[in-house]
């Protein structure tokens, strides 16, 4: 079989060659390989400079202060550090946290850990389009609320929350506001000051950068510290111990530099491809879109197909590399809790495909995808016991 067409950019992405080259510079035997903590010699200082440059590049995309970029092993760690570390840091003020039932498991898992540690958590339900009304957040705030965590764009549906409005509500109430912007970084405008974001989660591997590197970006006007999750050698002002992985950090810097540089052209190009894809299949009976019809990022298209069983649907289009639900869920084999929260039945959640595009997606990819989806869905629908022909 030929290599499948890759339409799983929301799960992970190939590393851009320019990112790879910058990583290589920090991997060799020349001076770039040092330990940034070893400030007493040139190797360490050269490494520290690479880290500083990357912090500036990452901070620039979201209009943050490079000194408040905390490097982590990825968005899972950033989410945990923000939610657990942020809430614990303010535990003297209260023990209540607000989030949404369609957040990423990293946020939900961190919230569950907070519950085990004596916090109360309110899980807001989005509407059928996946949207959380800012007023719903306002209504959930209590005098002892210390943190609100709402993602920018959902990883399964691409649905966009009104971060700025929620941020303003949190700022007003002096509650820490954490935003998981993994899926939106480089795809939607982000400005931590203007959007009243206190803690921002980003990573590299959803944007053609390396896996295993992310950051928690703090807004120093409101929060300069969270309770650490990892203790050790005092790196990163004690907030996150561990030797800094310079090549990974350099790669993330380049990733964000490229995002900033190419956003204006790439975002509409990819949206156009995504819309072509949708136009190519939307007429098929039983095919429905998941999430708000407009308020979605331009790289994700998630559909459910009525009358078709999920496993067969996936297999019928296995010339496409896509995810049913989120990749993080495919290990569990359970129907997506995100689509369930949008009111889809188990069967419709199972018979869903997330088609996600990115930098190396082409019109040819989209054409192949349309052909495969049409053929597969039509064949399976003809096989349905409910098929009109039978």
């Amino acid at each position, binding site marked *: 079989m030929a290599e499948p067409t890759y339409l799983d950019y929301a799960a992970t992405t190939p590393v851009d060659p320019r990112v790879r080259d910058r990583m290589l510079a920090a991997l060799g035997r020349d001076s770039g390989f040092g330990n940034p903590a070893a400030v007493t010699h040139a190797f360490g200082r050269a490494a520290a400079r690479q880290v500083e440059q990357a912090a500036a590049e990452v901070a620039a995309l979201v209009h943050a202060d490079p000194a408040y970029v905390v490097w982590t092993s990825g968005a899972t760690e950033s989410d945990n550090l923000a939610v657990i570390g942020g809430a614990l840091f303010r535990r003297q003020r209260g023990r209540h946290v607000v989030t949404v039932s369609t957040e990423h498991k990293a946020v939900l898992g961190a919230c569950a850990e907070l519950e085990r540690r004596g916090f109360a958590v309110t899980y807001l339900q989005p509407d059928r389009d996946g949207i959380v009304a800012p007023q719903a957040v306002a209504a959930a705030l209590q005098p002892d609320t210390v943190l609100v965590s709402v993602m920018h764009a959902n990883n399964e549906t691409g649905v966009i929350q009104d971060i700025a409005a929620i941020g303003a509500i949190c700022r007003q109430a002096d509650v820490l506001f954490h935003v998981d912007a993994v899926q939106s970084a480089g795809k939607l405008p982000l400005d931590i000051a203007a959007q009243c974001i206190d803690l921002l989660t980003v990573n590299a591997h959803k944007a053609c950068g390396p896996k295993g590197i992310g950051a928690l970006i703090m807004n120093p006007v409101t929060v300069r510290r969270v309770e650490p999750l990892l203790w050790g050698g005092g790196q990163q002002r004690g907030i996150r111990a561990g030797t800094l992985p310079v090549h990974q950090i350099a790669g993330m810097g380049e990733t964000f530099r490229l995002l900033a540089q190419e956003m204006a052209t790439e975002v509409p190009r990819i949206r156009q491809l995504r819309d072509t894809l949708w136009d190519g299949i939307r007429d098929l009976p039983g095919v429905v879109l998941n999430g708000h019809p407009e308020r979605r990022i331009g790289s994700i298209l998630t559909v459910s197909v009525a*009358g*078709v*069983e999920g*496993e*067969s649907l996936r*297999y*019928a289009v296995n010339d496409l590399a896509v995810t049913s639900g989120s990749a993080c869920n*495919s*290990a569990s084999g359970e129907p997506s809790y995100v689509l369930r929260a949008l009111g889809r*039945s*188990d*069967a419709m959640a199972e018979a869903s495909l997330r088609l996600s595009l990115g930098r190396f997606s082409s019109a040819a990819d989209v054409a192949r995808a349309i052909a495969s989806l049409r053929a597969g869905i039509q*064949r399976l629908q*003809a*096989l*349905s*016991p*409910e*098929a009109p*022909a*039978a």
Partner: protein
Amino acid sequence: MTGPRYNTAVTERFSRPALPLPTVPAGSRLISGTAGSERDGARVRFFALVQQDRLCEVGFRAWACPHIIAACSLVAERLQGRPPADLCQAELTGGLEELEIPVEKMGKILILQDALRACREDLHARPSGRASA
């Protein structure tokens, strides 16, 4: 860590398009039987043209995973030319080893058996005429 894999027997049967409903010549009958539901994880419908106490042109419809679809296809093929009484023979839905159906799915084979039994009942319930869904 590796998702559902299918052997070539499954792959090949899964890929076949649905057999169209046969036209019913005089002296023949189209019978059918359905079982299962989305909640059961599979819904299966068999149909067959009965001619001179033989099952000819046996087909199926299924909302099911590839393994169960392949099992339907195999069973339908085996029934071809057999007497309708065989619709209730367990051996039909036994002997599916060639499909390497994972154990956790074997329970769904009962749905196939139920659909076949319903087919048989269809023959007895209505001495003639077009099958009901």
